[in-house]
């Protein structure tokens, strides 16, 4: 609530916290770029290509975190006890950011694949899975854009997101059995293949993406809050206008739609 109030004062999605977060992210991006492009040496086998390791794995992780967060938030929304518009906003924000990172993952992967494997695209298990996930979540975003009552939209989308998440293991098994060619996890192997500056840079790239993710998420979430606010603020006016249609000035107290619509419809939605 404090956050919302502060936000409304600024009439935007930024405040001191996000500015600091943004600055830290910017510095980290610069550091990663410097470490990745200047300090770290080229690889013995992959040459300059290895520098993609400072972009691609972190982006993929951010993408999966985004989708995971979306599924978690959707589940929390569907659960009657924890139902709140906040979870819906979080799901919307994280899915959108997940899609952005997913596209980034596929693009950088493709750029990497061309010189490393000789093809832009290959039907490898993890690639296919990522592409499938992108398609699934593009569908989810399309569903989010359909209008109508915000609460029913939230429920529809939450159901779809949860079932998408349930499918990830199935998709994973399917694509793995189907084909496997991708190089395995590079850091988690017992005998890491990368050392020194490369490892450090890569770890920093994960931190950078983490901050970037958080910064984007906060802003995107607040855009959702503002949109809700915009619509909720019109509520009193809409009621008054609707009553005026009948020539009625006031009849009793204006019905209270406590805080925002989400609270009152929470009760109604428990069926």
């Amino acid at each position, binding site marked *: 609530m404090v956050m919302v109030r502060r936000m409304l004062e600024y009439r935007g999605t930024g405040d001191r916290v996000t500015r600091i977060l943004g600055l830290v992210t910017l510095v980290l991006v610069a550091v990663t770029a410097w470490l990745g492009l200047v300090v770290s040496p080229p690889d013995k086998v992959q040459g300059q290509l290895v520098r993609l390791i400072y972009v691609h794995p972190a982006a993929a992780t951010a993408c999966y975190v985004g989708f995971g967060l979306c599924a978690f938030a959707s589940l929390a929304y569907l659960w009657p006890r924890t139902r709140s518009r906040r979870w819906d906003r979080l799901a919307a924000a994280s899915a959108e950011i997940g899609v952005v990172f997913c596209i980034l993952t596929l693009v950088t992967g493709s750029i990497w694949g061309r010189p490393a494997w000789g093809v832009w695209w290959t039907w490898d298990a993890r690639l296919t899975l990522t592409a499938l996930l992108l398609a699934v979540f593009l569908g989810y975003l399309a*569903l989010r854009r*359909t209008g109508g009552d915000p609460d029913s939209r939230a429920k529809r989308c939450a159901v779809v997101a949860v079932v998408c998440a349930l*499918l990830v293991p199935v998709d994973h*098994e*399917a694509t793995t059995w189907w084909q496997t060619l991708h190089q395995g996890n590079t850091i988690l192997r017992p005998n890491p293949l990368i050392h020194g500056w490369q490892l450090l840079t890569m770890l920093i790239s994960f931190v950078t993406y983490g901050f970037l993710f958080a910064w984007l998420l906060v802003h995107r979430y607040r855009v959702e809050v503002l949109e809700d606010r915009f619509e909720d603020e019109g509520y009193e006016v809409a009621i008054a206008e609707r009553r005026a249609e009948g020539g009625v000035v006031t009849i009793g107290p204006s019905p209270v739609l406590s805080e925002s619509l989400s609270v009152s419809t929470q009760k109604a939605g428990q069926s």
Partner: protein
Amino acid sequence: MWRDAVVVGGKDLRVEMHSRVTTTQVAPYAILVLLLFGFAFDQNHAILSQAAPGLFWMAVLLCSMLAVQRSFALEAADGARDGLRLSGLDPAGIFLGKAAAVALQLVILEVVLGLGIAVLFGTTFHNPALLVLSAAAATVGLASAGTLYGMVAAGLRVRETLLPLLILPVVAPVLLGATQAWMAALGLTTADGWRWLTLLVSFAAIYVTFGVLSFSVLVEEA
């Protein structure tokens, strides 16, 4: 729940018996798709019989989209959806009934398509047990996923265009699993076909369970 499922499923099948949309429109469409595959692959029998399982399931997928669209177009007409809600039917029953009706129509289509690939692509069938079981699991999966998303998209103005975007990526594992299982059953690969069956069964289980649990949420949201 089961009683309601029988009532709803029976109604959908009765509508189909009167209107014969599946038999007079979707089934010919399915055969047409197979013919067009034949044109696309330049009547090369070696390629066609090798690709037969994939083409078969692709055709089933396209038909399932039509069947689901039809199933929810019924409810969209003249306030039928309100009638369904007002009747106080158990949403889980509505889901099971509608999914079962779609599944039954898909089974008929699969028989037609099976004859189609046998005639047009020269497919011969080897392992009937695996063939039938994997087809059954895939059909349940397709019908339940289709019904779930059909309800998600029902009542939206953009449902015709949204539905394929929602369903197709999601049923990709069914296409993959059913195709691989059939490849094995038709003797086109030496790989183990049975493990694909487990995949198809788990897909179907997820969608049936989740559909039963979540349909009340979807039915209420007009």
